[in-house]
């Protein structure tokens, strides 16, 4: 797969397809496998299907909803051809993904647009920010990143390296500085330099730590005080290998700082990705980007259609 020495430039679609290749082989191929040789859709087949869906981290509830829909159609004799199962699952998953509230990313704002990136420890926030900065810079935007993860050892250095890779400036202070103070500096600098996009890196925090969530709330307040309407986006990074706790994370971060979109990181590393569906179903938060590799341009905009198509083609 893609590593530092990985293959050259690839199109958007092939990248996504490659990233979900392992999901594809596990979800779709498995469905095809259990269907093989079956004449009709029976209870045993549906049980197998349930195991497959849960095995893709969709969670018990989401899986049950999908199965319920299918069971209904089977009992009303609308379908009985096992080869149709694959398409039924596909339709169901797409319907769930499309049921998010459809917030539009990148609504134009006058002045600096502030994007806060949040998440639990180790999900890939800093890496994602490097890629995100690169993406905006390529769109001819003036971008600055703010190193407000002043807690983790070497987090600032890591962001600096990513800033260089993406060719954007970084506003930083010392490790241990008050994150809100760094943010304030970054906003002041962004205003005076007429920056289009300010991307704020934050320290990883478990959503169960009230004081740390409070710190995030404070940063949000400061941003809003300095630039009305800011932060314009709060993006929650979720590790694609995360299980059902991903839902709790999304819920808790939403409660504290109002998550406007999800970035699913490390999709190239996992065989699953089902938590995406569970989050869309439960919280209606749209997935905005997907991280598909370690290179600076390995971040692509999420589209449910492309995602599902690459899963099922």
């Amino acid at each position, binding site marked *: *797969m893609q*590593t*530092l*020495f990985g293959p050259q430039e690839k199109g958007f679609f092939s990248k996504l397809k490659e990233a979900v290749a*392992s999901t594809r082989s596990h979800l779709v191929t498995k469905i095809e496998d259990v269907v093989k040789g079956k004449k009709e859709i029976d209870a045993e087949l549906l049980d197998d299907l349930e*195991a497959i869906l*849960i*095995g*893709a*981290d969709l*969670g*018990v509830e989401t899986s049950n909803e999908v199965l319920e829909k299918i069971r209904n159609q089977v009992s009303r004799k609308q379908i009985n051809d096992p080869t149709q199962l694959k398409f039924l699952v596909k339709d169901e998953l797409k319907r769930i993904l499309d049921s998010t509230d459809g917030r539009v990313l990148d609504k134009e704002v006058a002045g600096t647009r502030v994007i806060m990136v949040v998440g*639990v*420890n*180790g*999900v*890939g926030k800093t890496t994602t920010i490097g890629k995100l900065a690169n993406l905006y810079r390529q769109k001819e935007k003036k971008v600055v990143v703010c190193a407000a993860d002043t*807690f*983790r*050892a*070497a*987090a600032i*250095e*890591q962001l*600096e*390296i*990513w800033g260089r890779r993406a060719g954007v400036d970084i506003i930083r202070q010392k*490790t241990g500085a008050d994150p809100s103070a760094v943010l304030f500096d970054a906003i002041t600098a962004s205003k005076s330099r007429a920056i289009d996009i300010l991307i704020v890196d934050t320290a990883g925090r*478990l*959503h*169960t*730590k*009230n*004081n740390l969530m409070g710190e995030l709330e404070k940063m949000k307040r400061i941003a809003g005080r300095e630039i009305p309407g800011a932060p314009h986006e709060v993006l929650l990074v979720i*590790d694609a*290998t*995360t*299980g*059902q*706790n*991903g839902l*709790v*994370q999304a819920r808790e971060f939403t409660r504290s700082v109002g998550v406007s979109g999800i970035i699913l990181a*490390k999709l*190239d*590393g*996992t*065989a*699953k990705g*089902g*938590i995406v569906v569970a989050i869309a179903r439960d919280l209606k938060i749209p997935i905005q980007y997907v991280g598909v590799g*370690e290179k600076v341009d390995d971040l692509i905009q999420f589209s449910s259609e492309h995602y599902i198509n690459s899963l099922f083609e």
Partner: protein
Amino acid sequence: MLDQLSQKLQTIFRNLRGEGKLSPDHIEQALREIRLALLEADVNFKVVKQFIERIKVRALGQEVMESLSPSHQVIKIVRDELVETLGGTSPRLNFSAKLPSVFLIVGLQGSGKTTSTGKLARWLNRNGHRSYLVSIDVYRPAAREQLSIIAREVDVSVYAGEGVDDPLKLCREALREAGNSGYDVLLIDTAGRLHIDEQLMQELRKVKELANPSEILFVADAMTGQDAVKSAQEFHNQLGLTGVILTKLDGDARGGAALSIKTVTGQPIKFVGVGEKYDALELFHPDRLVSRILGMGDVLSLIEKAEEAIDHKKALEFEKKLRSDSFTLEDFRDQLRQMRKLGPLEQILSMLPQVGPFKELTKVKVDEKELLHIEAIINSMTPKERNHHQIINGSRRKRIARGSGTSVQQVNQLLKQYVQARKMMKQVGSGIFGKRFGRMKLPDLG
């Protein structure tokens, strides 16, 4: 979760009264609920399937014990089986005869390898070892700086290897340096990788060949989902793991991944990471994780902590005072201090099971500052005032407020609460610490 599970099981078993044995039918229904509970806790579905089979064999035909209700009995079987599965092998660390022993720390990206490496080095040094660190993660930006910074903070030496960016060379030189300087354990922090990344996996195999580690520890995020099985299996196949460090258990993930990893690798979980501070690494206790997977809270850890932190003599004295109604503000302050020794209140509350009367309590947001204020107020009283709260009149209140940097309102509030608490305790009349903690064991069975 468990309260739901208990309730469901109770409904299933309601009709069981009078029957002497757990019938297959009842067990079948109970197992369905248990299966869902485990799946929701992120235990891999294949592992769940095997596990349920074993439970079935164990549960079938068991006599219904008098002491336990059938539903509790099934839960007990599940618990015991889980503890057995997760425990079993000794979690002891292996050291080699030839110094230094090498521990290789491996895992997926973002699982917490570097932090865990630092924590483990600190733990080893506390336990009489002299450890030495090296990071061979030449890929992730600032990864090696991160380990150097952590090493400084935990006061452990690190091989920086400036200018070297070949992992094998770093390894070789760190080994030599460790040998020369008389360190007895070398911890090697490696690059995070995808388990499907053949190139990096090959590099790890070479490192293993070179350094001949006595421990290859797989660092796994407690929040991992179904994929845990595959990554653990792949790492185990490629490298032959010797143990697992389960991280980020201070969150609210149920940690079912641990069961999956243990089942597919057969290797023991040796440590758990429970916080962002470098001392937040604990030896693994299977029974506690089981309670968590089943949603029963970590009451045992809490009891242990309480036993460690609470001065027994003081607790007894306190109990006597309560009985004799001589509980003063002085005692109140003592009690506050004892409580604070347990650690941040939030952490304590999070260890309580999410059941019954505790359920609401675990959601309470505690303002640690308020506790500080309370202590400051009591500190600003004269000993006489602390022992005879009745004498605290208006002007005394003003003085106390000024002295403690609070307001008269806050002083009033504290006094009011204290009087109420006294009243309440008189009604309860029995111990807070010894007995209450004793009673808290297995609250689900209450």
